[in-house]
């Protein structure tokens, strides 16, 4: 498979996955762009893996989990402009904003959130989730059950 074929076939799915992770179309685009540039520059290595898509998804997930987890220096000093996403204007965005569950979801640790997306959006089996997150199957399960417990406690209270 060439890089072009891969991008033609999988870019849409990766973008959707990134939207689920970040909850924001612009951040999702940045995330996918950064990952795909690296995919393109290192295509031979990616193509050598058994399942290129899973490899790329793993790259993207790592990128997301590590993203701007930055230290004090990066956050405080080295940004020109504020980090806030501008106030939502379009309907889809405000619909999401009304979504209580969504706001709780965005407060979860990123790995937990990635695990939830992989199971409840991508419907992947735990073994595959484990491979993408780079951890053991048991860790995936405990990760998800912790995330669900948090959501249940917070979300149910509100409802």
């Amino acid at each position, binding site marked *: 498979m060439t890089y072009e074929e891969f*991008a033609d076939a999988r*870019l*849409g799915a990766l*973008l*959707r996955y990134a*939207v*689920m992770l970040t*909850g*924001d*179309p612009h951040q*999702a*685009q940045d995330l*996918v*762009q*950064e990952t*795909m*540039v690296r995919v*393109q*520059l290192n295509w031979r290595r990616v193509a050598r893996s058994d399942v290129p898509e899973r490899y790329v998804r793993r790259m993207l997930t790592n990128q997301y989990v*590590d*993203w*701007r987890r*930055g*230290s*004090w*220096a*990066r956050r405080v*000093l*080295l940004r020109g402009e504020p980090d806030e996403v501008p106030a939502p204007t379009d309907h*889809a*965005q405000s*619909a*999401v904003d009304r*979504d209580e*569950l*969504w706001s709780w*979801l965005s407060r979860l640790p990123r790995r937990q959130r990635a695990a*939830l*997306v992989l199971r*409840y*959006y991508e419907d992947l089996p735990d073994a595959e989730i484990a491979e993408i997150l780079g951890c053991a199957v048991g860790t995936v399960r405990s990760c998800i059950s912790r995330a*669900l417990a948090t*959501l*249940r406690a917070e*979300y*149910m209270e509100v409802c």
Partner: protein
Amino acid sequence: MIENDLRAAFARLEALTPPTGPVRAAIERAAVRRRRRRFRLRVGGTALVLVAAATAGFTAFVPHQPAPATLLDEPAPPTPTGALNVLLLGVDSMSTQRPPLADSVLLVHLPADRSRPYLVSLPRDLEVAIPGLHRDKLNAAFAYGAGYDPPDQSKGYDLTRRAVVDLTGVPVDAGAVLTYPVLRKVTDALGGVEVCLPQPIRSSHTRRAYPAGCQRLDGAASVDLLRQRRGLPDGGLDRDRNAQRFAAGLVRRARAQDVLRDPVQLSRIVAAVGPDLTVAGRSVLDLLRVVPELTSVEPVGLSLPVELTGGSNGRLRADPKAAPAFLAALREDRLAEWAAAHPDRVTPIR
């Protein structure tokens, strides 16, 4: 059921997915930019050739034959005389998401009598005046200089160099920026490096464990070891000592394999690291000419004496009692004397 609510929330979110066309185009543009940058670095890197092992490797030239530079027909510039200081910066990842920090700052001091190299670690948590800015940790100087969009290694190097010159008062004659991939490739090209640890270390990044004593590490293991700071008794300071141990092992290995006099091996290493290494100051060949003059290549590991400031973030400051004498010894090229008087401050290397 929360699971169903989750599925529904995700399904609603799908509407936000951006169209693929513009994203695809943006990826292409970014990839082209990055390829050009890589190419530029490669061209620069090969020119500097560098026995990348400038790392420490340049001390591995066996006092024996004339260095390759002298074989050139053109009139050779005079071999540098007097004490030389080479600044090596180990930086963490070069990503466009965040500026890199120089977590290892190592000043290699070659005394005027060319007795042996001295490795002087400057702790990354040391509070220094960043030229043109405020006081901050030493490792942040690289970040302020380099920025992150994309990071510019030479600017990061330059700001760190100025901070180090202000701090130590010694001129820096040359320097290099080392990233983890460079170290990994050099190590692998040498077939592994022997590192001798005084205490066992368990990696907090991988599942590796390093027993006390000497062991041969490949590139990936070396890089992992050089990252370890948590769980060590002295944290970052112990990591600096491990970097010195690694540098000593690298030199021994390069010397044992006679790498620097073997053009085939040398070109293999240069090919491996050339594109990723940034070098500044005096040319590497120029520096290499010093190496045959060294009596011994076994380095002495030292650190700037420091103490906690008691402030936030574990910042350190130069120890008001011990540091002035140390820095004076460095400036006046009397480190041998100083090390003899303070054996407890010399890093046990093997």
